[in-house]
């Protein structure tokens, strides 16, 4: 957005217990170790499919809603015939050597014309060499996303912070495009296309341009391409680069990350635990998939958005404030261990305290400033009120203004704009326009305060921040004590019990054998310094 003052992240304004912050980080590190081990020793059907997509495997078998993506067909065939323990890359590139062409090899396997096999001798060496070349080209494709984004920003200009983030969700990509362009013209810097309800539980990625989503639009590679082109076009017109966001979550997290890199998306919702807790996706599947997807995001220069706001839509936002911070420390650790730097960690939180709670705004400032202090290098993503938005749109507009004010005072980088009609209907054109007017007024009128604001030592705000920090430390210590898997099984996150072998997608998790080969993950790890 345009403001008269440079955006600042106010740091060092609260005297918080720095030793406690360091302890939270070290506890998060300890908690994450078994998850990192899991990601090192196992793969999933979606990771293998993502690698095929990078290699250029495309298309679907069948038509309409029944259509099965060719990457799914190939991985399923390999899994059923020779097993997936050694990965899909070697049998697939052996097939490529036999047929002479990537897409022909994939379609032949899908059509049962060519049975996948594990090559030996010279055939094996040739398959490894071809797979390695494909891996190198995949990594180059991912890195090119970052370079191309940089060039596009140099050409059209960078949006100044905070970035105003707006959602479109018509279900029809051809309706989404004019709405997204209208939102950018009105002042949005980031456009998120909400996915169709239920896509997270599909174990395949729908294909082509789609017009039939429920409360959102299917994430498909073609939809990504169409929206990216539309935002590039409107960015040229406006003289600022418009960022595109989608969701690398659910059962196809790695593949959607791959598609995002290939189509130069800029931000992806990507939380280490959201799928487990809120979508009942198997915890092993989620932890392995998020590691791979974060490596891809890292190299592609994609900013992830984590989903801590969800903890506050189910729990009380005062009593549950520490669960947000605890999750942020875990998301930070698991991002770093996948080579994703702090500068690409859009840690999420939300303005969800009941406006009737005394001192609500002061409490929100304490929470937002505490998070700002704990993560000085992260482009924080601040989510607007949803839970306490009543049908009173006039009060809702004011609450959204207070949310914007707290965002301005505490230097939040990415502001998801609140809608005064939240919970009533999908936003009208005028709802979005009014939301941008609200944000422009509040940020324009108060952004300089972020650089000047100081808090009373040991005052209400500082004491509340330290209380939340202490509760966070205690929660992380408890989790570290029993271990992450046991903690989730005990319902320590969002009061939701999930078991290690429960939930959706476990059948797609495969323990890697000693002769597992995957040049994409190897080269990505090497490039990012991930071991």
């Amino acid at each position, binding site marked *: 957005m345009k403001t008269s003052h440079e955006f600042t992240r106010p740091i060092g304004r609260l005297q918080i217990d720095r030793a406690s912050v360091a302890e939270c980080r070290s506890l998060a590190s300890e908690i994450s170790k078994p998850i990192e081990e899991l990601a090192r020793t196992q793969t999933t059907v979606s990771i293998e499919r993502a690698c095929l997509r990078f290699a250029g495997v495309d298309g679907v078998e069948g038509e309409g809603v029944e259509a099965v993506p060719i990457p799914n067909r190939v991985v399923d065939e390999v899994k059923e015939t020779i097993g997936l323990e050694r990965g899909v890359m070697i049998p697939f590139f052996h097939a490529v050597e036999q047929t002479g062409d990537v897409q022909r090899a994939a379609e032949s396997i899908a059509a049962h014309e060519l049975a996948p096999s594990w090559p030996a001798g010279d055939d094996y060496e040739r398959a490894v060499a071809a797979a390695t070349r494909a891996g190198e080209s995949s990594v180059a494709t991912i890195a090119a996303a970052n370079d191309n984004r940089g060039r596009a920003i140099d050409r059209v200009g960078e949006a100044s912070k905070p970035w105003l983030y707006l959602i479109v969700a018509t279900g029809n990509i051809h309706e989404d495009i004019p709405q997204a362009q*209208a939102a950018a*013209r009105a002042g949005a810097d980031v456009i998120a296309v909400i996915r169709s*309800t*239920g896509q*997270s539980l599909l174990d395949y990625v729908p294909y082509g341009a789609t017009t039939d989503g*429920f*409360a959102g639009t299917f994430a498909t590679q073609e939809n990504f391409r169409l929206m990216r082109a539309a935002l590039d076009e409107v960015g040229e017109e406006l003289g600022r680069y418009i960022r595109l966001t989608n969701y690398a979550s659910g059962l196809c997290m790695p593949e959607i990350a791959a598609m995002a890199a290939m189509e130069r998306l800029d931000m992806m919702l990507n939380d280490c635990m959201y799928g487990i807790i809120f*979508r009942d996706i198997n915890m092993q599947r989620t932890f392995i998939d998020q590691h791979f997807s974060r490596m891809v995001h890292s190299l592609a220069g994609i900013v992830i958005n984590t989903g801590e706001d969800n903890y506050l839509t189910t729990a009380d936002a005062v009593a549950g404030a520490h669960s947000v911070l605890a999750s942020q420390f875990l998301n930070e650790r698991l991002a770093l261990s996948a080579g994703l730097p702090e500068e690409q960690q859009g840690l999420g939180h939300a303005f969800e305290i009941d406006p009737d709670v005394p001192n609500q705004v002061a409490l929100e400032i304490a929470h937002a400033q505490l998070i700002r202090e704990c993560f000085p290098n992260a482009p924080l993503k601040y989510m607007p009120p949803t839970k306490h938005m009543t049908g009173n749109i006039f009060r809702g507009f004011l609450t959204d203004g207070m949310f914007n004010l707290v965002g301005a005072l505490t230097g939040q980088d990415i502001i998801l704009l609140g809608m005064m009609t939240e919970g009533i209907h999908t936003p009208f054109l005028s709802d979005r326009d009014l939301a941008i007017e609200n944000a422009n007024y509040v940020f324009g009128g108060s952004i300089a305060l972020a650089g000047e604001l100081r808090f009373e030592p040991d005052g209400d705000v500082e004491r509340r921040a330290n209380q939340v920090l202490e509760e966070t430390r205690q929660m992380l210590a408890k989790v570290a004590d029993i271990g992450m898997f046991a903690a989730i099984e005990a319902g320590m996150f969002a009061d939701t019990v999930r078991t290690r072998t429960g939930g959706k997608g476990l059948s797609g998790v495969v323990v890697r054998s000693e002769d597992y080969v995957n040049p994409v993950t190897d080269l990505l790890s090497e490039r990012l310094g991930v071991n």
Partner: protein
Amino acid sequence: MTAIKPYGDATDDGLIQASFTLPIAESERARQAALEFARKMDLGRPQVVHMKAMGPDFTFFIVYGATQHSVDPDELEVPEREFPVLSYQEVNRVLRESLKRQLVVVGACTGTDAHTVGLDAILSMKGFAGDHGLEYFPEMRVLNLGSQVEPADIVETVRANGADAVLVSQVVTQRDAHLVHLKEVRDSLVDAGLRNGLILVGGGPRFSAEQAAELGYDKIFGRGTRPSEVASYLAYAATTRALNAG
């Protein structure tokens, strides 16, 4: 009582406000279009107090005008709530005395809807708006099946647990998917021969109570419903059903 009109700052001035968007570029013609539109809504002496371009093709208006219409509230047919709202203790007592066992309640979000916020608000221990959810009532046994539940799974759970009531929640919807999904559950229960003798309840922010008959449900709850209302209704329905059964 006599007919009444909206009250702005004087009796019977009939003043109301409206805001809307027209698909036309901002211009004097656009303002005249908004005024004419207000007149066609039977607003007398309309004023456009705010006009703002939203991009090149749309204009947003805030309009005031005086309605000529009036309403006599006494002539309206208002559906009375057929059940009393009971306290926590009363719900438990009514269930204990009428059933002499726990009321078995199955809850689910069906179809593509993954949003359990409404279902959880009604069912979970924590509840909503200061009311505890149904899980909190010792005289109820609650089976919360969560999101994206297939109608067949609801039927199976009802059968396996001898459920007395089914609560179906739909939050996110598009093109009336919420109505379709509710009907699917009802049809599955009918096909399985379980509909009679079952208290079938639907709920979600897009529903209104009048839709119950059309959907083949015993009761539909809309936006802002509290767990205590649902608990009271279940107690009432369980009692009347027990009476019907003799």
